[in-house]
């Protein structure tokens, strides 16, 4: 297990490094350069040249790449061109917002999705299952940004129950430091989290229903029934526990969603998170921010896979044996 874990971690680091390299090459190859003055306010070429030299943009790309890796190894993500401050600071501001939004969405996704999927499996081919099956199929097919707009229309414009932009009231609650302001944050969180969570929950419900039904046909379920276990015990202890194994993989795959799943929703709800930071950075040719965002996102992908594999090994004794997976 230990050797397996070491190998997996090493492979994960290699993958992240490859993603960083690819991103680095891609942004530097693209036409257009940072510090190009807008056409309406032409700047002195000497100023532009000095700025480019200051950020070592006048050096060959391989030299820049080596220098970047050197900085990265020391934990330094560099300076943002556009924001004129350390990339780490900008990330430290944006990441918690995205984690809050995507975390709340995933929570709703998994809790509601699991509950619906299990419920449907228990009522399979009966009316509740058919109604929920069609509803989840429909909602699962929504473009999230469109559902976001519909929710804004209904709950923001017509009913006026929830605010439709920002993480909190900028005047009354600039920081979540009192109970009232924490409630204000949650109030602002409702619509964007609901948007992402509902579409996700529909997918999870469909997945979980299928997983439950697949397990239902297994011999050990028949054995459990045959030995006289009560239906409730069969479903919860035998069927659900085994169906949760495939859910763990889904959980691992959903991990990167914490960072990248919210890009469109952050645009709609003016949510100052990673998606908007990265999008702005790409449009402004802010190389260090773009590379750092790719670094974070790919780290979450490999972390999610790793976590799912470890959790599976813990949950499923059959998987503990192979040392060379």
């Amino acid at each position, binding site marked *: 297990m230990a050797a397996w874990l070491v190998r997996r971690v090493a492979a994960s680091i290699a993958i992240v490094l490859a993603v960083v390299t690819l*991103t680095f090459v891609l942004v530097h190859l693209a036409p257009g350069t940072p510090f190009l003055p807008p056409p309406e306010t032409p700047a002195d070429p000497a100023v532009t040249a000095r700025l480019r030299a200051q950020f070592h943009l006048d050096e060959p790309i391989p030299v820049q790449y080596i220098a970047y890796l050197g900085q990265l190894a020391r934990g330094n993500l560099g300076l943002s061109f556009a924001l004129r401050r350390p990339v780490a600071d900008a990330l430290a501001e944006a990441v918690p917002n995205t984690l809050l939004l995507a975390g709340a969405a995933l929570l709703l996704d998994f809790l509601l999705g699991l509950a619906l999927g299990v419920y449907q499996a228990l009522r399979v081919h009966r009316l509740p299952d058919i109604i929920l099956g069609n509803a989840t199929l429909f909602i*699962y097919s929504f*473009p999230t940004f*469109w559902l976001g707009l519909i929710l804004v229309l209904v709950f923001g*414009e017509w009913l006026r129950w929830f605010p439709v932009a920002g993480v909190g009231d900028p005047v009354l609650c600039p920081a979540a430091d009192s109970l009232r302001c924490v409630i204000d944050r949650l109030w602002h969180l409702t619509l964007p989290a609901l948007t992402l969570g509902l579409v996700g929950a529909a997918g999870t419900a469909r997945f979980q229903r299928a997983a439950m039904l697949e397990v239902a046909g297994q011999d050990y379920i028949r054995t459990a029934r045959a030995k006289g276990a009560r239906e409730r015990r069969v479903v919860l202890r035998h069927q659900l526990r085994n169906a949760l194994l495939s859910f763990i993989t889904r959980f691992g795959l959903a991990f990167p969603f914490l960072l990248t799943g919210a890009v*469109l929703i952050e645009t709609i709800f003016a949510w100052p998170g990673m998606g908007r930071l*990265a999008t702005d950075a*790409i449009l402004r040719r802010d190389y260090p921010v*773009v590379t750092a965002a790719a670094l974070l996102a790919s780290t979450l992908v490999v972390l999610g896979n790793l976590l799912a594999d470890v959790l599976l090994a813990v949950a499923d004794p059959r998987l503990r044996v192979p040392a060379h997976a």
Partner: protein
Amino acid sequence: MTLPTWLALLVALALAGAAARAVRRRFFRHPTATWGVGILAFFAIVAVAAPLVAPFDPREQLDIIRLKNQPPSWTYMLGTDVYSRDLWSRVVFGARVSLVVGGLGTLVAVTLGATVGAVAGYYRRWADAVLMRGVDVGLALPRIFVLLMAIALWDRLSLPVLVLTIGLTSWFGTSRLVRAEVLSLRERDFVAAARALGAGPARVILRHVLPNAAAPIIVSATLGIGNVLLLEAGLSFLGIGVAPPTASWGSMIADGAPTLATAPWTTLFPGLAIALVVMALNAVGDGLRDALDPRREDT
């Protein structure tokens, strides 16, 4: 309201009905799959016959003063948008963009994924190791960021390049799936027989191995079209997908968003079109999976 619109609807319904009646095989035991076929048929007919079905030119601003954001009526079936363009005509022409991008993008992705997966699974050893480590990296790439970079940095991409870019970033999952299938298929007797008869690797892969892996590939392709379609809509919504004034469902939603409260139909209908097509694709994909894979009975 135009006659061809009703005709398209009728033909689609008839197709779905006929299919459900005539073919009593596994696929159409899925009630939703039958509906999916009908919905897809409707949008396919509408897309092909767009000039006949659309009562107006989708780009024409009919009367920017008096016909802006008109609610649905007999003349303007789904209303007009903020530039006084007929929404139904734009939805009709948008179907072309969405179906073409979804279909071709998936074709690129599946072709690439099947090739890489088949080569990795058939040759194993270093080819497998190299290709699959590459796929690992591809799966770890934040796709939305990569697409944003490609599209935003290289300015606006033409439609073929957009399709290619989406296809090139969407094949990693398929290649894993195909590799797994090929790994088990290559050990089967009929592959050994083909090889014994002197068939070269290319022939064995194309004629013997891949056709037997067709079922999961077709299913994942069907579901993939919906994903690509949603991706294109998202990019167009951000204003970096299909260039205006070409009608695309994603950019139509973006056009409608600022007047969401006063003219909700401009946002509602294009999104509904996306949801319907993606739902139909998912339903058909489910039906195909159950029909093609006898092991997955009735889920």
